[in-house]
């Protein structure tokens, strides 16, 4: 399991900054965010092969360098922790702004939507792998379950996307449950192998259960989502400006991603999340302290799968076509790589990982045959220099009151002769 590193925050208690200081801090923080975002925009807009390579190297160097500069690291983290709400708002604003920058290049907006869909799925796998420590190498199964369920409901039974979406998620959760039930007798590498086999078998079924999946013909003519008669492939017009219809899908995927992030945070901070982490840390100890390991593992598996299915449903209705080739082993491995490269257990990291691993291969298309070679090379470099991922899992520190702790120590009435000198103020 990855080393977890701890955020240095003296946060919490009171914000003693003056208004001017606050404004200055926020300006600096927002400035950094905008600058990074601008660099990102330039990066994905690049067309020239040499420039793309240069940019890729820049990213790898940045990722490696970031880990080598602990001071800068903790500076950024402290700023982020202090003005968390503000940073979140700026980020959201930038994400909303994104498609408007590329009004004349709808393909990039489409890529943005695709990145968001993969972020939803990676966040799902993050629950299984990052929180609970269960290695699932067959995640494409849930992607497929969501995609097939919602698209076939729409194609055959004319069911609305908005009903198909949750059903797609639940179908995927069921497929997660289906493998978790028997597979959780084994753990670690063995579990990875079982899920690997599951992914391979299911992909064969996608190809051969033609009555359900239309086999290699794929499901075609999947209707786009619609609200009150307006469907998502009709561009919105504001005055003379016609917004590309890809934007509709981009915002749909973005909203679902934000919801998924919210659910992930709530789960992580809950009693349930803590018990998942206990299982990840030491299963035997968790069991001895009353954690129903088997039940919680199955919940983790199914919850992760649910988000895989949600991603699948959105994907199917956006692309309009579902084919077994979408759900091969490589897909599972890419989603796994998003979680590992982003940083297992770190929600923001996983989203960044998903965006990077969706966009980089696309931008490398200029290289044709060399594409996967370069991509693989970048992965190797990152894993050598950042084995814990771009953003290692970080623990949320609790906001505790120093006075109360000091009183408790005093009341305990222990004079610890051999204890190291007590800090004047207890670190909280």
């Amino acid at each position, binding site marked *: *399991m990855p*080393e*977890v590193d*701890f955020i240095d925050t003296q946060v919490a208690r009171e914000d003693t900054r003056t208004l001017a200081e606050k404004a200055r801090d926020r300006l600096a923080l927002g400035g950094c965010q905008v600058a990074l975002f601008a660099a990102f925009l330039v990066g994905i807009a690049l067309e020239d092969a040499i420039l793309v390579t240069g940019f890729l190297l820049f990213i790898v160097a940045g990722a490696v360098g970031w880990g080598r500069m602990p001071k800068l690291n903790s500076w950024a983290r402290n700023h982020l922790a202090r003005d968390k709400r503000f940073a979140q708002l700026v980020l959201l604003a930038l994400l909303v702004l994104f498609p408007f920058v590329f009004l004349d290049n709808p393909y990039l907006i489409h890529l943005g939507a695709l990145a968001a869909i993969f972020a939803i799925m990676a966040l799902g796998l993050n629950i299984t792998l990052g929180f609970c420590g269960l290695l699932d190498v067959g995640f494409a199964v849930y992607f497929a379950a969501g995609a097939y369920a919602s698209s076939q409901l729409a194609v055959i039974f004319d069911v609305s996307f908005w009903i198909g979406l949750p059903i797609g998620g639940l179908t995927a959760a069921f497929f997660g449950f289906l493998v978790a039930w028997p597979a959780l007798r084994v753990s670690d590498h063995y579990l990875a192998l079982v899920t690997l086999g599951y992914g391979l078998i299911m992909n064969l079924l996608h190809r051969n259960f033609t009555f359900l999946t239309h086999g290699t013909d794929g499901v075609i003519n999947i209707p786009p989502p619609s609200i009150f008669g307006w469907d998502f492939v009709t561009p919105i017009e504001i005055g003379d400006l016609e917004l590309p219809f890809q934007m509709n899908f981009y915002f749909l995927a973005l909203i679902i991603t934000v919801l998924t992030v919210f*659910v992930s945070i*709530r*789960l992580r901070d*809950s*009693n*349930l*999340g*803590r*018990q998942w*982490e*206990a299982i990840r*840390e*030491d299963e*035997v*100890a*968790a*069991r*001895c*302290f*009353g*954690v*129903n*390991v088997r039940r*919680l593992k199955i*919940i983790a598996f199914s*919850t992760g799968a649910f988000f895989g299915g949600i991603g699948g449903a959105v994907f199917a209705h956006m692309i309009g076509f579902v084919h077994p080739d979408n759900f091969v082993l490589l897909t599972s491995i890419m989603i796994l790589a998003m979680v590992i490269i982003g940083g297992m257990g770190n929600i923001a990291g996983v989203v960044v990982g998903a965006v990077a691993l969706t966009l980089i291969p696309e931008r490398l298309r200029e290289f044709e045959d060399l594409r996967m070679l370069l991509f693989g090379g970048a992965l190797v470099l990152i894993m050598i220099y950042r084995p814990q991922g771009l953003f290692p*899992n970080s*623990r949320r*520190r*609790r906001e*505790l009151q120093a006075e*109360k*702790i000091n009183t*408790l*120590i005093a*009341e*305990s009435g*222990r*004079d*610890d002769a*051999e*204890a190291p000198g*007590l*800090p004047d103020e*207890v*670190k*909280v």
Partner: protein
Amino acid sequence: MAADQTAATLLASEALTKNFGGVLAVNDLSLEVREGEITAIIGPNGSGKTTFFNLIMHLYDATSGQILFGGERRNLLDLPTHKINAQGLARTFQTLRLFPNLTVLENVLIAMSSHVNAGFLSALVKPKSLRQQDKDAEEKALETLSMFGARLISMCNEPASSLSYANRRRLEIARCVASQPRLILLDEPVAGMNPTETRGVIEDIQRIHEKGHTVLLIEHDMKLVEGVAHRVFAFDHGTKIAEGSFRDVSTHPAVIEAYLGKRAARH
């Protein structure tokens, strides 16, 4: 230290046997742990002490026999491991088993909250009652940590892996106490500790005992056993070879033989 002869039996092992593919790790073991006492198990390595603990927590299935707990004499071997803590048992591990990447406080919180409210909906909605519950749990956890003075509580927001070795052992004990058990099982609580630290642990065990917990411990450190135990069981080859006060057991011929061989026992 006079053992209270009238105390009720809290834990009883009856004809307990565990066979690991032909090796009898525990062999027809019958013993009784009395409520309110500190009981120690001694014995050479491989005599089945830790296996006995693992059977109590139902980490292993017994080959035969029963482990009965409490007034209602519930057979622990009928319960899955995760339900045993709620019955009123908690244990430490010889090789430490903390949750290394969770904070010291969270390590304790797990022990307190595992049987309540792991619900999905409540995690998403986060109702007010739950928030209050969390806060109360946090306070109680801090109180438990304060049992060890400043040592643990001053580190409560640090990962358990950052604690010193002795403090990790203390955290294991704190985690047990936090789950409010009737019986605490300590597996070699002072293994690897220096004499000063050992004295500290002796005090800690007595403190736990005063709080009303019954303690069953495995220990090789005879100073500790002599210092705290009301009653001692000696194990050899998976079975109980002697029982009584420390003095009785430590001079018992069978015990001397188990530790030092037949020749020493004759003298």
